[in-house]
C-alpha cells in the first residue's frame, strides 16, 4: 500500500488500485456517463454515415473518420476517468491553473495558429493533428469563475449575493478569453463561452440587476457589432442568410438549405442508416462536424432526432442533480457545464433546423472533432469528481 492511498485529502490523492471495484465505483453517476457514451457512439455512427461515401469516392478508407472519432472518444474517456479521480476540493488549487493554461492556449493561437473556415482558431500539432484551444477555454473559464466565487464567498452566508467587486472580477475573467476568441473570429465559441459564464453568474446568485444589465449589454454590443462592422464578412453573411434564406442558395445559405432538405425528408422514422440520399450524395457541407445532426434527421427521422434531444435532456438533468447536491464551487462548475453543453447543443441543432444562425459549433459528444471531444470528456470527468466529493 502506498501513502497516497491512505490519505484521501492529500494532493493528487488517487484511490488505491487494489481497492475493491464496488468501492472504487462509488459516487459515480453511471447514468450520466452512460448518456454521454451513448451520445458519442451515436455520433460515431453518424460521422461514419456522413463520410463513408465521400471517402470511398476519393479512394480513401470509408471507415477513416469512424476510426478517428472512436480514437478521439477513447482519449476523451481516459481523460474523463483521470479527472474524475481528482478530489474536487483541489479545484481551489487547480482552478486558476486551468484558467491560465487555457488562456495561454488562446494567446498561442493568435501567434502560431492556423486558419480553418475563416477562423484563426487552430494550433497545428504536426502529423495532421490540430488543437482548438477555445474548446478548452470553455472549461477553463467555468472552473476559474467557480473558484473565484467560492473563494470570495468563503465564510459568507450562502444566501448573500456576491459583492460588486466579486462580479467585476468575474467579468474580467470572462472578458479576456471572450475578446481573444472574438478576434479569431469565432463567434460560436464566444456565444457558448458567454452562455456558460452567464449560467455560473446565475448559480452564484448575483443580483438580478447584474444579470439583466448584462443581458442588455450583450444586446447592445451585438447590435453595435453588426452595425459597426466588428463582425467578419462571412459572419454577417451567415446572419443575413439566416434572416433571408432564399437570397443566396449557393453561398452561405447553402449549408442551411441542404441540411433542411436532408432533415425534412427524414420524416418520422428516417430513410434508414446509410440510406440518406442527401447525406450519401455529399450535399451537406461540413456534415461530419457542424451539420452532423442532419444525418440523424435524414436517416433516423423524427425518432432519431428526438432521441438525441432526449439524451441531452437526460445529460442536463443528471448534471443539475449533481449541481444541486454539490458544495458552492462544485455547483457553479456543474451549472456552467450544463449551460455550456445545453446552449451548444441548442445552437447547433437549432442551426440545423433553421432556427438559429450559422456559427461554426460542433454538436457536443456527437460531432467529429478531437478538441471538443476531449474538452467534453474532461467536463464529464469533472462532474463525476464533484459528485464523488458530495457523496462522500
Amino acid at each position, binding site marked *: 500500500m502506498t501513502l497516497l492511498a491512505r490519505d484521501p485529502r492529500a494532493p493528487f490523492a488517487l484511490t488505491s488500485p487494489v481497492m475493491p471495484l464496488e468501492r472504487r465505483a462509488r459516487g459515480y453517476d453511471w447514468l450520466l456517463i452512460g448518456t454521454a457514451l451513448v451520445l458519442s457512439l451515436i455520433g460515431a455512427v453518424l460521422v461514419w454515415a456522413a463520410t463513408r461515401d465521400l471517402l470511398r469516392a476519393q479512394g480513401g478508407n470509408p471507415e477513416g473518420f469512424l476510426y478517428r472519432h472512436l480514437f478521439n472518444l477513447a482519449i476523451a474517456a481516459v481523460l474523463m476517468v483521470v479527472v474524475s479521480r481528482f478530489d474536487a476540493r483541489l479545484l481551489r488549487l487547480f482552478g486558476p491553473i486551468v484558467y491560465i493554461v487555457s488562456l495561454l492556449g488562446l494567446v498561442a493561437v493568435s501567434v502560431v495558429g492556423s486558419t480553418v473556415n475563416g477562423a484563426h482558431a487552430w494550433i497545428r500539432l504536426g502529423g495532421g493533428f490540430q488543437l482548438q484551444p477555445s474548446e478548452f477555454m470553455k472549461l477553463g473559464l467555468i472552473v476559474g469563475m467557480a473558484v473565484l466565487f467560492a473563494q470570495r464567498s468563503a465564510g459568507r452566508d*450562502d444566501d448573500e449575493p456576491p459583492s460588486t467587486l466579486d462580479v467585476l472580477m468575474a467579468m474580467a475573467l470572462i472578458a479576456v478569453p471572450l475578446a481573444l476568441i472574438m478576434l479569431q473570429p469565432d463567434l460560436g465559441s464566444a456565444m457558448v463561452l458567454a452562455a456558460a459564464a452567464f449560467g455560473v453568474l*446565475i448559480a452564484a446568485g448575483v443580483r438580478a440587476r447584474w444579470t439583466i444589465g448584462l443581458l442588455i449589454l450583450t444586446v447592445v454590443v451585438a447590435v453595435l457589432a453588426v452595425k459597426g462592422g466588428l463582425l467578419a464578412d462571412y459572419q454577417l453573411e451567415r446572419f443575413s442568410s439566416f434572416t433571408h434564406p432564399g437570397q443566396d442558395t449557393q453561398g452561405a445559405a447553402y449549408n442551411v438549405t441542404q441540411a433542411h432538405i436532408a432533415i425534412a425528408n427524414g420524416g418520422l422514422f428516417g430513410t434508414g442508416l446509410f440510406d440518406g440520399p*442527401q447525406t450519401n*450524395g455529399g450535399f451537406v457541407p461540413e456534415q461530419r462536424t457542424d451539420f452532423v445532426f442532419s444525418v440523424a434527421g435524414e436517416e433516423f427521422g*423524427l425518432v432519431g432526432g428526438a432521441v438525441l*434531444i432526449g439524451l441531452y435532456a437526460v445529460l442536463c438533468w443528471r448534471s443539475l442533480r449533481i449541481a444541486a447536491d454539490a458544495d458552492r464551487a462544485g455547483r457553479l462548475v456543474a451549472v456552467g457545464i450544463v449551460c455550456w453543453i445545453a446552449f451548444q447543443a441548442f445552437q447547433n441543432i437549432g442551426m440545423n433546423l433553421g432556427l438559429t444562425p450559422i456559427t461554426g459549433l460542433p454538436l457536443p459528444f456527437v460531432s467529429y472533432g478531437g478538441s471538443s471531444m476531449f474538452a467534453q470528456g474532461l467536463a464529464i470527468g469533472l462532474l463525476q469528481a464533484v459528485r464523488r466529493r458530495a457523496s462522500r
Partner: protein
Amino acid sequence: VANGRRNGPGARRLTIVVVLVASMMLTLAGRLYYVQLLDPNKPVQTAGRLHDGTIVVPAPRGQIVDARGRVLVANTSMQVLTVNRETLQALPDQGTAVIGRLATLLRTTPALLAKEITPCSPRVPAPCWTGQPYQPVPVATNTSTAVALAVSEHREHFPGVALQTVTQPSYPNGTLAAHLLGYTGEVTAADKKATPVLTDADTIGRSGLQAQYDTVLRGTDGKQVVQLTPQGTVAADTAGGNVPAVQGDTLVTSIDADVQKLAEMSLARQIADSRAKGKLATSGAVVVMDPNTGRVIASASYPTYNPQEFIGGISKADYGALTAPGAGDPLLSRAIAGQYAPGSTFKLITASSLVAHNEISLGSSYACPGSLAIDGRVKTNYDSESFGRPLSLQDALGYSCDTFFYAPTAAEYYADQARIAAGQKPTEYLQKTAASFGVGRAPNIDLPADEQAAGSYADRETRRARWLANKAQYCAAAKRGFPDEPNPAQRAYRTALAAENCTDGWRYRAGDNADMAIGQGETTMSPLQLALAYSAMLNGGRIFAPTLGWAVVDGAGKVVRTIKPTVRNTVPVQRSVLNYIADSLQFSRGWAVSGAFAYIGSPVQSLIGGKTGTAEVFGRQDTSWLASWGPLSRDAKGDPHAKFVVVGMVEQAGTGATAAGPMLKRIYDGLLGVGGPAVIPGSRPETSLPKIAPQVRVMSRPAAPRPAARGDAPHPDAMPTRAVRAGASR
C-alpha cells in the same frame, strides 16, 4: 448535509437554469417535429438528380495576314497535358507515383504539381485548380514532343494523364510586327462584364490589332453539354445541345511582311552600328506608309518583344523581364505610341506656315548667322555653323539652317504680342499650321486609343493653363531644391528651372516660338505623325486617318468588310508651296541636302528626298531623324509624287545624317531593288486584296485549354482562369 443543500438558496437558483435548459430542449423538439412532419412546404429532395453542365468550346481566333495573304498570326494546335484527378485518387497510392513521374518529366516538383491539380477552395490556397473538379486539369501547355512521346508510349505509367489538342493563336514569325499585331490574354471578370458573350475559355486581344479587331477575330464559341451526377462527375456526354465553335474572321492588313522584316532588320542593325560608334542608341522606330492611300505598310519599334510569350498566360518572370526598368520598355510601340521632339524634320510645317502666311517669300533670301539672340538668349545653329551669305528657303531647308527660321517666327511672336496688347487675339499661325498637319491630335489609326500618341506643341493658352495647375508644385520644388539629385549640375539646373516656372511659367516667349520652329521645346510628334505630315506634302495636303487593317474575310473566303483610310483634313498650304519644299529636299541636290549624305552615289539617289532632324533632348544624346520619300515621280502637271514615305528615328544616336540616314538607305535599297531584287513587287504598295482560302472547319474540342493557376501569375490579363462553367445546381 445533502438534503440541506438541496433545499438551500443555492439550489433555488438552479430552478432558473432548469427552466432555461428545459425550454431550449422543448423548442428544439417542437421545431424538429414541425420540420419533419408538419411543414406544408417541405423542400424537395435534390440528391440523385442529374443536372446539365456546359463545357464551352472556345472558338479559334481568326488569322491576321499581310497585304499579300501571308500569315502573321495563325492558329496552332497545341498539345496540352491533362491530369484526371478522379483516376489518380482511385489508385492504391492515390496517384503519388504518377505525380512523381510526371513531375520529373515536366521538370517540376511533385509537391507543386500535386497542389496545382487540387481544386481551389477556401482551405486550398493557390497554386490550385480553378476549374470544376470533374474536369481533367491541364498541367502543361505547349507540351514538347519528347514529353508527349514519353506519356503516350508508356500509358501504363501514366494512368489518368492525357494529351489533348487545343488551338491557340500563334505568331509564326516570332517578334515580327509584334507592336502592330499585339498580344492576347485570358478573359477577366471585367471583360465579361463589358462583353457578356465572353467566357473564361476565350482568349481576348489585349493590344494592337488583336485588341482593335477583337470582335472580328474572336469568332463564336461552341458548347458541349454533359450530364453531371450530384457529386459533379460526368455521367454522360449528351450530344443534344452541342453547338460547334465558329472560327473568327481573317483580318487582311496592309502590312507587307517583307518590308516589315526589312524595316526591323535595318533598325536593329542601325542600333548596333550606332552603339559600335559609342552612342547609346537606346531605341528607335521606323514607319513605312503609302502617302497616296494612307495605308501603313510597315512599322518597326526597337526594342521589341515576342507576343507568343503571352499565349497560355505569361509567367511572372517573363512579364517582369518585359517590364523591368532596364528592359527599355519593349512593349511600347515607339513608332506610333512614342512621341519625341522631331527636330528639323518639323521645318516642313514651319516653312509651310511661314510661306502660307506671307512671313517669308519664296523669291527672297534671308540671313543664316551662326547664332541669333532672341529675347536676350543666344540661339545657335547646330555646331554654330554659319553662312556668310543669305539663303533661299530651298537652301535653308537643304542645309537645315536653324537661325533662318528663328527670325520670322520670333517676328510672328512679337506681332502676336502687339495684337494682345491691342486687345486682339493672337494669330499663332505656326501653332495652327502644326495642328492642321495633325500635331497635338491622335492620328486615329485603327489601333487602341492608348497605343497612339497625339504629339504636342506649346501655345499661350496651354502654357497658362498648365502653370495655373502646377504653380504650387513648381514653387515648392524651387524652394526645396532637388536634394535627391546626385549630379550637382542637374540639381542646379532643375532648381533654376523650377524657380523660373514658379514665377514666369505662364509666359510664352519669343524663344518658345523659335524653339517650335525647329521642332524643339515642347514640340513632340510620333514617327507615324511625321509620316502622315510628309505624306500630306506629297499627296496635295491630305492628312489621313491611317489604317493597318485592309479587309475582313469570313470563313468562306468572302470579303465582308473593306477598311479604307479616311481623309481627316487638308492642310491650308498651296500645292505649289508643298512642291517647293519637296523639291528643296530632293537628294539629287547632293551635298546641298543634309539627308542625302548617306545616299550620295547610290543608283537611286535621284529618286529619293528627305529631311533630317537632330533633336536635342536635355541630359541625353541627340535623337536622329530622317523623314523621307521615294521613289519620286512627276505627274502631267509636274507635281512630285512618291510611292512610299519612310520615317526613321533612333534615340540617342547623333545627327539625322549619321544614324537615321544610313538606316533608311537599307530600306530604300530593299524597296527599290538596289543590289538585289526588290522586296516588294514593282517597288510599289500592293493595290489588290489577296485571295484568302476558305477556312478548314476546326473540329470542336471539348476541353480546357488553360494551365492550372500558378501562384506566380502576375498580370490579371495573363491569369489563367477556369475554362468551364457548370450548369444548374451545385
